[in-house]
C-alpha cells in the first residue's frame, strides 16, 4: 500500500535556473585519462551544483566508470582537475582527503557490502571508524538510515541473504549514514526489475528532497536517467557529447545521443583484412 502511494506521488524537481544559482560542488576541468596507450577520457569538463541530480550516461566503454572513479578519488590524483566541495583532490594532503571523504557517500554497482558483517554493521561501519560515537547512538543512526531506504527490520541479515534491490538500498543507507553533502551512485538500477528500479529512482529523488544533497548517478538505464536527472551528461568514447536537462536531451540533434536514448545499435564497418591482421597480432 505504502509502495503504491509512493509510486503515484510526483516528487517536485527544481528548475535548471534555480540549480545553477547554487554553489558548485563538483568541478571537473579538462580531464584526460589513459590506461597505458589507450586514452579513455578526452578533455572532460563538467560542473554539478548543490542539490542537483546529475546523471552520467553512456554505453559500455564510454568512460563513465573511469570518470566516476576520478570523482570519488579512486584514481591517482591530478592537480587542478577535479574539485569536490571547492577542494582540489589533486593537491589535498592525505589527512585532508580523509576528511573530505567523510562528506561524500558512494554506493557501488554491486553494493560492496562487507560479506562478513550484517546489514546494520555495514551501515554502522563509517560511524564506528570515523565518528567515534557510542554504540547506542550508532544503533539509532543506523536504524534511521535503514528506515529512510525502507530497510528497517532487515539490519540483522547478512548481505548474502539480501535480494539485488535490498543490497542496493543497504548500500545507499551506508552511503548516507554520515549525512554527506554529495553521493555517488554507480549503476543503481542495473540487474533490477522495472518495479524495484522505479522504487529506487523514487528513493533517490526523496533523498535529495529530504537531505538536500547533490547526487551523481552513473547509469545506462535511459528511463531512470530521464526520471531522476536534473541534467544528463552523455559520454561517448570518452568525450562529453551533451550535458543538458532531460527535455533538451530528448531533442538533441546529435545522432549518437539519439542512438543511446532510443537504444539503437550503431552500424560498425569492419574491414575483414584489418581484422585478420589484428588477430595475427601485426
Amino acid at each position, binding site marked *: 500500500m505504502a509502495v503504491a502511494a509512493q509510486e503515484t506521488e510526483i516528487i517536485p524537481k527544481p528548475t535548471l535556473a534555480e540549480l545553477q544559482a547554487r554553489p558548485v560542488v563538483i568541478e571537473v576541468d579538462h580531464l584526460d585519462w589513459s590506461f597505458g596507450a589507450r586514452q579513455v577520457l578526452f578533455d572532460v569538463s563538467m560542473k554539478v551544483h548543490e542539490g542537483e541530480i546529475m546523471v552520467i550516461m553512456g554505453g559500455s566503454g564510454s568512460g563513465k566508470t573511469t570518470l566516476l572513479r576520478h570523482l*570519488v*578519488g*579512486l584514481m591517482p590524483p591530478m592537480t587542478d582537475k577535479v574539485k569536490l566541495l571547492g577542494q582540489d583532490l589533486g593537491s589535498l594532503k592525505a*589527512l585532508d*582527503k*580523509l*576528511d*573530505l*571523504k*567523510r562528506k*561524500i557517500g*558512494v554506493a*557501488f*554497482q*554491486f553494493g*560492496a*557490502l*562487507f*560479506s562478513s558483517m550484517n546489514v546494520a554493521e555495514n551501515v554502522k*561501519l*563509517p560511524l564506528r*571508524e*570515523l565518528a*567515534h560515537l557510542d554504540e547506542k547512538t550508532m544503533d539509532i543512526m543506523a536504524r534511521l538510515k535503514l528506515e529512510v531506504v525502507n530497510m528497517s527490520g532487515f539490519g540483522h541479515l547478512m548481505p548474502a541473504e539480501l535480494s539485488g534491490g535490498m543490497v542496493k538500498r543497504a548500500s545507499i543507507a551506508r552511503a548516507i549514514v554520515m549525512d554527506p553533502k554529495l553521493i*555517488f551512485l554507480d549503476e543503481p538500477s542495473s540487474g533490477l526489475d522495472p518495479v524495484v528500479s522505479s522504487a529506487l529512482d523514487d528513493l533517490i529523488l526523496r533523498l535529495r528532497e529530504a537531505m538536500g544533497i547533490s547526487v551523481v548517478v552513473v547509469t545506462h538505464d535511459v528511463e531512470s536517467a530521464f526520471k531522476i536527472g536534473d541534467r544528463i551528461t552523455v559520454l561517448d568514447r570518452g568525450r562529453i557529447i551533451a550535458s543538458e536537462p532531460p527535455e533538451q536531451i530528448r531533442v538533441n540533434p546529435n545522432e549518437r545521443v539519439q542512438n543511446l536514448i532510443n537504444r539503437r545499435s550503431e552500424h560498425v564497418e569492419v574491414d575483414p583484412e584489418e581484422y585478420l591482421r589484428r588477430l595475427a597480432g601485426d
Partner: protein
Amino acid sequence: MAAVLRFFDAIGRRTARGFDEWGFGAALLIESVIWIFIGRFYRQPVRFTHTFAEMMRFGIGALPIAALLAATIGLMLAIQSLYSLGLFGAQSFAYIGIALSVTREFSPLIMGILIAGRSGSAISARLATMTINQEVDALQVMGINPVRFLVAPMLIALVIMLPCLAMLANLVSIGAAGLYVSVSLDQTFGSYVYQTLKILKTDDVLHGIIKSSFFGLLIGLIGVMNGAGVSGGAEGVGRVTTRSVVQAITAIVVSDMVIGYLSTH
C-alpha cells in the same frame, strides 16, 4: 634472434614485476607500522578487536593441527635420532639433537609452513575477493584506510601468534620425543626433560621465536601483496591464493636457511 629477444624481454618483465611487488610489500609494511604507532593520534587507531579476532583465527584456530604436527615431528626426530646415533652407540645423546633442532629449526619452520598454507591462503583469498567485490574501494571512499583497517591487524596477529605456536610446538615436540626416547632407552621421562633443559640455552629458544615472528611477517605481507594484486574474477582469486602459498613457503624455507647460516657463523 627474435626468440632470444623475447626470452630476455620476459626475464626483464618478470624482474621488474618482482621489484614492483616487493616495493609494494615494503610500502605496506611501512604504512602498517606508521598506522600502528600514529593512528591513534589521528583518531584512526588500529582496532584491538580486529587484531584479537585475527589472532583467534590465525593462532587459536590452528591449535589442534599445530599440536598434531608438532607431536609427529617430535616422534619422527626421536625415531631417526635413535636409529642414526645407534650406529655409533650414542643413543643416550639423542636429546641434544632433538632439543636443538626442534627449538632452532623445526618448530618455527613447520609452524611457518602450516600457517602459510592455512592462513596465508586465507588472507590472500579474502583480500582478493574484497578487491573484486569493490569492498576495498568502498573502504577508501569512506575515508577508512584499508592498510590500517585490514592489513595492520593481520600483520600484528601473525607476528604475535606464530611465535606462540612455535613455543607450543617446542613443548609438544620435545614432550612427544621425550616419551618415545624414554620408553626406548628405558629411562624416566623426568631425566629426559632434565637433560633437555640443561642443554638448551635461552638463545636457542629466542632464535626460533624471533625467526617465527619474521616468518609471520613474511606470510602476512605475501598474502596481502597477492590478494591486493588480483585480477580476473574468481579464477584470479584461485590463482593468487595458490601463488601466495607457494611464495610464502619458498620465502620461509630460503630465509630459514639464510638465517640459520648467519646465526651459526
